[in-house]
Structures are given as structure tokens and as C-alpha cells.
């Protein structure tokens, strides 16, 4: 037997088991309707679960994007200091984050597609529930045992099939959400431990080195200035004898030098 027919008969056999049959077809109708409403609620919860998972991935991606931007800035800073080694390190880390981001994007797209499918599925199920409610009341009102069996059976197996289909879609979505939650959790842990976000953790070390690179020339300049002041101290001493107005007028008055030294 071909796959198409095997798949169909198993699907239908399973779907028919989803709804119990009662002696009175009218009871079966009511029971089926209740089950369909329950299914619709389950479906809505599943849609919310998928959305929550999707949002979590979005937050993680934002976090990674911030790290990537920071590393990019650090690479630029390193290059302007002629520290190609640091720039290379920053860019290597940014590359690692880019890989993670591509991965997250793929997961995000999958979840989005799943979400859209489930929203469509619940809309279809809602339309069927509404139609089923009307049909069930009509059938109950004009009930004749003879024709009831076939008509009721048709409606029941139709709605049962829809529930089977929705159930299958929900199971798939739940499996995907579970998989992604596990991965998101692992990524969160990695970020918190700094192993992956080693990016941002060691990028603090990277930043420290860059800051040192910026600070060093400034320190050198300060040292040179102090050195200059010390060697010129004999002239300074002479200047102290100069009139008081001159000493206060000069902003870089030598008298201020010791104060600056104390500050260090």
C-alpha cells in the first residue's frame, strides 16, 4: 500500500479514537463539542507558549547584538592605537557572536513560522467550532434516529479529524518550543558564566588594555611636563622673587605643581 493511504488510514483511525461515542448520538455531539472547545483553549495556550519562546530569543539576540557592537567599537579603537593584536582579538570574538546570532535568527524564523501556522490553525478550528455548534443544535432539534447515525457520524468524524490535525500541529510546536527552551537556557547560562559572553567578559579585559593604550601617551606627556618643571626649578626659584601679580597671572604657575603631584 502506498504511503498516502497508509498515512490516511492511521491518521483517521487515531483521530476517531479522540472522541468517545455514546449510545445516544445527541450525547456524542455535545461531548464532541466540549472536547473541541477544550482543544481550542489548549491551542491558544500553545500559541502563547510559542510567542514567549520567540520573545526570549529576541531578547538574547539583542544582548548579543550589543556585545557585537561593543566589540566593533573596541576594534576601531585598537586600530587607532595601532594595536592590531587587540583589534584582531575583538574582531575574532565578534565573529563568534555573529555565528550565534545567525543560529538564533534561524530559530527565530522557525518559531515565527510555527506561530503563524498555529494562529491559522486555531482560526480554522474556531470556524469549525462555530459551525459545529450550529449544526449540532439543528441535528438535535430535528433528530430522527434513522438519519441521525450517518449525519452525526459525518460531523463527528469531521470534527475529530480536525482535532487530530490540530493536535499533531500542537505536538510539533510543543516539541520545537521544548528544544528551543533547552537551547535558550544553555545560551543564558553561557552568557551568565561568561564562557560564550566571554565576549563581553574578556572584552572588559580588552577594554582595560585599550584604556591603558589611551592613558599611556597622556601619562608620558604628564611625566615629561613634570620632568621639565623639575629641571627648570632653578629658574622657577628666581621667578618667585618676581612681583606677585606675575605669579598669580600665569595659569601654569610652578607653585601649583606640587599640588598636582599630590593628587596622583
Amino acid at each position, binding site marked *: 500500500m*502506498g504511503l*498516502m493511504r*497508509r498515512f490516511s488510514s492511521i491518521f483517521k483511525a487515531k483521530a476517531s479514537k479522540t472522541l468517545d461515542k455514546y449510545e445516544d448520538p445527541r450525547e456524542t455531539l455535545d461531548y464532541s463539542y466540549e472536547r473541541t472547545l477544550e482543544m481550542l483553549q489548549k491551542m491558544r495556550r500553545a500559541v502563547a507558549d510559542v510567542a514567549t519562546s520567540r520573545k526570549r530569543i529576541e531578547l538574547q539576540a539583542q544582548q548579543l547584538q550589543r556585545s557585537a557592537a561593543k566589540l566593533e567599537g573596541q576594534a576601531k579603537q585598537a586600530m587607532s592605537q595601532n594595536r592590531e593584536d587587540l583589534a584582531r582579538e575583538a574582531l575574532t570574538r565578534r565573529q563568534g557572536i555573529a555565528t550565534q546570532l545567525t543560529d538564533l535568527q534561524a530559530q527565530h524564523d522557525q518559531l515565527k513560522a510555527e506561530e503563524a501556522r498555529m494562529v491559522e490553525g486555531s482560526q480554522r478550528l474556531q470556524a*469549525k467550532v462555530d459551525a459545529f455548534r450550529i449544526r449540532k443544535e439543528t441535528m438535535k432539534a430535528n433528530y430522527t434516529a434513522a438519519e441521525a447515525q450517518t449525519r452525526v457520524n459525518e460531523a463527528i468524524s469531521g470534527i475529530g479529524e480536525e482535532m487530530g*490535525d490540530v*493536535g*499533531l500541529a500542537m505536538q510539533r510546536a510543543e516539541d520545537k518550543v521544548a528544544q528551543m527552551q533547552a537551547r535558550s537556557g544553555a545560551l543564558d547560562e553561557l552568557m551568565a558564566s561568561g564562557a560564550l559572553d566571554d565576549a563581553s567578559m574578556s572584552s572588559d579585559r580588552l577594554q582595560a588594555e585599550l584604556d591603558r593604550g589611551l592613558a599611556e601617551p597622556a601619562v608620558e606627556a604628564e611625566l615629561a611636563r613634570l620632568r621639565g618643571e623639575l629641571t627648570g626649578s632653578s629658574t622657577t626659584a628666581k621667578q618667585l622673587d618676581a612681583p606677585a601679580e606675575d605669579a598669580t597671572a600665569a595659569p601654569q604657575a610652578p607653585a601649583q605643581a606640587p599640588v598636582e603631584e599630590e593628587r596622583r
Partner: protein
Amino acid sequence: MIVRISGEGQFDVPEGHVDELNRLDDDLTKAVDSGDEAQFTTALEALLASVRTAGEELPADWIGPSDLVLPSPDATIHEVREVLGDEGLIPG
């Protein structure tokens, strides 16, 4: 003939189109037997496309059983085998 595409909806397909579906189903069966995922996707897409073009989609509020039920467009061999196995259809 009523054909359901899982996760998509039900279609009313003319009886005369069955031979074509059977032919496409042969390809799909071969793909599942060989376990070739790419071949499976191609064969499934061809089968579903044929149902969509030859058939007419039934409105969402139509209630009735299908003569054939086909896997959803993004199904994998694994998922199809799961249905053919002992997995239940409705979770919980």
C-alpha cells in the same frame, strides 16, 4: 474526493485526478523507504501541489471527514514515520 493537507485544510479533488495522485504517491513511498530527506521533500511538495491545483479548498467552516489525509508541507520523514508508528495524535 476530499483530501486533507495536514495543517493546511481540506480540498475537494475530482475523482479523475486519483491516478495522478497515485503516481506521485509512488515517488513519495520510495523516498520514505530510502530515507532520502531531499527526495522526500520534493516528492511531498509535488503531491501537495497537485492536490492544491486540481482541487478546490473547502471553507474553514466546512465539517466532514476526508478520504485522504496527507502530511503537512514541512513534514520530515521522521515525523511521517512517527505517525505511522504508535505515537498518539492528541497530546495530553
